[in-house]
């Protein structure tokens, strides 16, 4: 027992010496065209929002629907880009393309079928979003209720300057 506590403190001391930058990990996910996209190489000079969702997550769908109504305004004002990362696994992944097109969503979609990116970014529950600017993660948020998109846009504007 004491050994474990000692080990934990040793790890903390070691981690102290390592500058851990909160940057995007070098993980490649497929897009809707089957092409592998390296997350760390995505251009983020403009504010980029990674939104984790799934076809079975009702609040996630509500969020992406609400943003869809005002996305073009957001893009005009801030050049923001929203990348919707689906964490649907083999059970529900076949529904992703059908749902995205059926609902006419304009977002870039990435498939995180074995939840590799979700784990690397410490996403615990969905919906979950991270805001990235110049390759650094500047803001994270968990959950969605109607009106959360207003606060999201305030953050997007804040980081756009």
């Amino acid at each position, binding site marked *: 027992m004491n050994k474990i506590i000692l080990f934990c403190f040793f790890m903390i001391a070691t981690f102290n010496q*390592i500058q851990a930058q909160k940057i995007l990990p070098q993980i490649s996910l497929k897009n809707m065209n089957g092409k592998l996209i390296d997350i760390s190489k995505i251009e983020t000079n403009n504010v980029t929002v990674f939104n984790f969702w799934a076809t079975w997550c009702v609040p996630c769908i509500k969020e992406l629907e609400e943003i869809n109504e005002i996305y073009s305004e957001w893009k005009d004002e801030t050049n923001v880009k929203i990348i919707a990362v689906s964490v649907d696994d083999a059970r529900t992944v076949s529904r992703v393309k059908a749902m995205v097109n059926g609902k006419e969503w304009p977002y870039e979609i990435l498939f995180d079928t074995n939840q590799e990116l979700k784990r690397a970014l410490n996403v615990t529950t969905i919906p*979950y979003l991270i805001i990235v600017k110049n390759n650094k993660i500047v803001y994270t948020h968990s*959950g969605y209720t109607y009106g959360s998109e207003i606060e999201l846009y305030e953050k997007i504007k804040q980081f756009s300057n």
Partner: protein
Amino acid sequence: MKKKLFFIFVLIAIQFNAQNNWVSGNFISNSQYYLDDNKTGDFGENDRFRSNNYLKLDANLNRFSLEIQVESYAPQSLLNFSSNFDKEIGFATYYANYKSDKLDATIGYFYEQFGNGLVLRSYEDKQLGVNNALRGSKLVYTPVNYVQITGLYGKHRVGFNVSDGDILGFDTEFNLTDALKVEKSYVNLGFSIVSRSQEIENSEKGFQKNTIAYSGRINYSKNNFYSSVEYVLKEKDAIVEFGFVNTQKLAKGNAFLLNTGYSKKGFSIDVTFRRLENMSFYSDRNVEGNLDNEQLVNYLPSLTKQHYYSLANIYIYQTQSRLTFTPFKKAGEIGSQIDVFYNVKKGTFLGGKYGTQLALNYATWYGLDAEFDTENRTFNAGFTNFGVKYFTEFNIEVLKKWSKKWYSNFTFINLYYNKKYIEETSGKVDATIAITEVTYKFTPKKSVRMEVQHLWTDDDKKDWVAGTLEMNFSSKVSLFAADLYNYGNELKKIHYYNFGGSFTKNSTRVSLSYGRQRGGLLCVGGICRIVPESTGFGLSINTSF
């Protein structure tokens, strides 16, 4: 002592949160305090307070990264989690990784999926208590951007130990259209080999300790049309019945998966067809069919719609992939699922001011029509023969935004559930479910959600009614009250009530609830855990840093 450890965990998490450029990670805690219930009975186990806690820490330095996950089950894990989660605190998983543009090397515990998961998938789902990470090493080599080669070796995680069996895997993917610089269409080829090796004591002479599964897949898409297919062959392996590994009686397995669809803005149709024959595949043959979903090599989810509403989660289909002769003759399953999405445009009669969205789903699953020779433990199944009907479900969902303040969702489900074959008891269920959900926004950031559900059936536990009221005061605070009432059940006419609230700030969420939980299946991604009937308080903490 246990409380001290819990406190230390929280301190570590807070410290890292405050000085947030050292390491990153997350902390998840799910606790329950079980109470006696005058309607459903006393809590008969020891330890009324149970808790599952997970602390993950990551450190990155240039191309190297380290990760460690500490888990604590204090004083015991939550009810019905595997008895292998038996340490009050221990190192659960850890790894060291090196990544460059072409090479990705990991030593320690890792996760991976080949193709659709029919031959290999190792992943984690904390809610279900599933973690079949492999401990060993994995190498992914990407010489050019259209070729990827993966090699891995490991033993499955089992609680705080590892499996008796070894897994060796190889996978390659080749993006043909990228290689030939073809732009307008997409063709991707994949091939995998997975071998499980395990010595069996006193096995029959000539018994192979290795079982190898081969898989080939093709994915194609052009314009609005797409199609993909995967075929798996599993070598003959011992038939396992009631924990006994019969090395004298062997059986082969195979799987066929076809997914195809047409998708354009405003309209999509997706069709999946799958046939499984003796495809259960475990690291340790002795634990075949275990209820804790441990040591699974592959992933065979049930291909039905995953529902959000409580009454739609009572009769859930579970994949029938195992070969059994008693008490029922089963060799696998065959069936299909169809999804249609349609967006009724704004301004049309049915669309209204904001449009209307329709989603239809139809799923149907049958056993394999096979000739079973119980005495000799053999079977013969035709490829397209449909046997006993296991499950059928038709559902339609209509989503509508009426104004800036009003939203509604109406769902109708009609299902057939073969309780006899799926649960291995007796009976069947024909049920119809109707659900109406309405959300009203008082102000742009304050809303209330109301849900009314009803289930009609003459079978099993008869009719149910359910309702939920959820008040979202802001993006940070939310309160809810829900009830499921089995009023049609003459033997057990009780309410399964639940009250609670949650507080969310940035990436931290804390929720507290009190209620009586219906016993049944909790399913995430088609893998289910049996959740016992229980009453009590629940506390859940999720934070990332």
